[in-house]
């Protein structure tokens, strides 16, 4: 990680720091060479005095100079520590500006730290997914066995305390500290500093030493500087993880969308004397609308349109369940009311009270041209007769999934030659929002009347187009589905 430009920067900063922190009230040599020079001159002086035979003068001179050397050495030591810290901080800063993994940054931090504030064991801890628990992300000096032992109790110890209080703790003697949770038997002193960003405590840096009182006041300051950098590293990683998760979710949604669109009919059935067409436009990637043509036998075909309350993946899941439940029941029975009652029970038992489905299910006999249907609280389909008269298909019962045992009625109607049956979901008639702006059933009827001579798919497309334009002017945003059955 060392970098020549970096050395230049930390070197400059060192000089600045030196001039501002030098002990100007005491006349001290600030460089080691000067100390050595002074020691040489002292030796000469002492030799001279001792040659004169005055032992008291030697002692006086020694005592006087002893104090000055103590200051000098302390100062040199302090300067060296500072320059080490600055170099470490610059290195970490450089790492943070590059695309280096969190693990690499934290490892460099904790290893570099050992040169500045020597420790026997160290760890960086963060909150665990399990509330109230914490976990280590970078560790030095602990054996696996030691870690296993205290992993469960980590949050009860010094690190946990520092993370919940957001205040650092310097424990000079762990044997006198009640909240100390022993991990390494040889540890005697401990220093922990929180990693904070804004008001959030992201974690803590914890150092342990085998010596009593190993960590001094100035070590706390250094550790706080490092913790500020660790905070940036952790926050950066957290933001990055969120971005990755959002991307993953986006991919999953696309997959769900693909699965769901595969559940909708790809092509309308081809039955002589009839023309079918449908369109489904989900508002979100995954929608809650469903329509289907289900072949029963050579003369009968099941027609279904349904709308699951809500949107997105939860609605999509209920829709997939509904489709499977419907298809298995249709295989075993003809009775439309039995099928709808059974689906109602299935949804009532498997979903919460706010999840419901409106559905229309009918069986079209293409030989007798009769449609037997039950409308379970769904937007009422429109039958445009050849003479232009309209019949609304409302017979049935309440929507599905919220009432335990409702009664469903069925109705059989005749599809005369030239009839157009249009089924749709609320995204069509409720488009536009507040009810004075709602697209409404009358506009749908107008379009059917105007275009009844066209093919089924084209009628469905025209209705959806008109609604889409209406919706973009007023806007509510719901799934839109239209299904058209024409008897030629």
């Amino acid at each position, binding site marked *: 990680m060392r970098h020549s430009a970096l050395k230049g920067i930390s070197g400059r900063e060192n000089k600045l720091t030196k001039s501002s922190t030098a002990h100007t009230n005491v006349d001290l040599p600030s460089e080691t060479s000067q100390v050595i020079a002074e020691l040489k001159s002292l030796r000469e002086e002492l030799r001279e005095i001792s040659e004169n035979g005055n032992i008291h003068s030697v002692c006086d001179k020694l005592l006087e100079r002893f104090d000055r050397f103590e200051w000098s050495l302390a100062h040199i030591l302090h300067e060296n520590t500072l320059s080490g810290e600055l170099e470490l901080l610059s290195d970490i800063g450089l790492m943070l500006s590059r695309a280096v993994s969190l693990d690499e940054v934290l490892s460099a931090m904790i290893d570099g730290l050992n040169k500045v504030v020597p420790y026997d064991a160290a760890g960086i801890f963060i909150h665990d997914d399990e509330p109230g628990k914490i976990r280590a992300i970078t560790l030095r000096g602990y054996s696996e066995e030691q870690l296993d032992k205290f992993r469960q109790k980590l949050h009860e110890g010094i690190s946990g305390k520092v993370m919940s209080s957001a205040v650092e703790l310097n424990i000079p003697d762990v044997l006198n500290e009640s909240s100390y949770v022993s991990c390494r038997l040889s540890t005697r002193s401990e220093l922990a500093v929180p990693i904070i960003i804004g008001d959030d405590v992201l974690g803590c840096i914890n150092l342990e030493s085998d010596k009593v009182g190993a960590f001094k006041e100035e070590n706390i300051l250094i550790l706080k500087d490092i913790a500020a950098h660790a905070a940036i590293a952790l926050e950066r990683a957290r933001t990055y993880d969120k971005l990755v998760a959002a991307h993953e979710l986006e991919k999953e949604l696309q997959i769900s969308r693909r699965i769901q669109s595969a559940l909708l009919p790809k092509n309308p059935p081809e039955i002589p004397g009839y023309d079918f067409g449908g369109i489904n436009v989900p508002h979100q990637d995954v929608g809650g609308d469903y329509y289907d043509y289900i072949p029963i036998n050579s003369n009968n075909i099941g027609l279904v349109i349904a709308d699951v309350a809500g949107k997105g993946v939860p609605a999509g899941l209920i829709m997939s369940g509904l489709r499977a439940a419907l298809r298995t029941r249709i295989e075993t029975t003809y009775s439309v009311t039995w099928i709808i009652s059974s689906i109602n029970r299935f949804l009532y038992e498997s979903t919460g*009270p*706010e999840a419901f489905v409106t559905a229309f299910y009918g069986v079209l006999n293409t030989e007798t041209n009769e449609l037997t249907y039950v409308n379970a*609280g769904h937007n009422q389909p429109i039958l445009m007769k050849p003479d232009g008269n309209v019949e609304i298909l409302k017979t049935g*019962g*309440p*929507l599905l999934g*919220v009432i335990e045992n409702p009664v469903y009625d069925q109705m059989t109607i005749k599809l005369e030659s030239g009839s157009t049956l249009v089924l749709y979901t609320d995204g069509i008639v409720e488009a536009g929002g507040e*009810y004075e702006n709602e697209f409404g059933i009358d506009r749908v009827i107008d379009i059917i009347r105007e275009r009844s001579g066209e093919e089924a798919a084209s009628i469905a497309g025209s209705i959806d187009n008109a609604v889409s334009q209406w919706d973009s002017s007023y806007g*509510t945003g*719901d799934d839109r589905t239209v299904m058209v059955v024409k008897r030629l």
Partner: protein
Amino acid sequence: MKLKSKIFEDVLVLELKGKIMGGPDAAIFREELKNQLDGGVKKVIVDLGKVDWMNSSGLGILIGGLTSVRNAEGEMKLARTTEKIKSLLMITKLIQVFETFESVESAIASFSS
């Protein structure tokens, strides 16, 4: 959606106002109703007179409410249903499930009769 709770003797009147569209609205309604039911309320009226608009998710709020009240062995009735809500209740045939009243007073009176 705005929600106001009023108590008339032992009847809770939940007055809804604005657009009812599911999502956060559902959570507000559910929470208030739950608190009141936990407090021992058994008679609930939802006053819809000031509701401008409601979609099918909004309808889910009423259905969820009805279920919660019934589970607490109480009763929930609707008062002052607007044309839009009436039409939603007609289409979904929930008109068979919800008792509806023209005024809050008549709804309150129905509990004592």
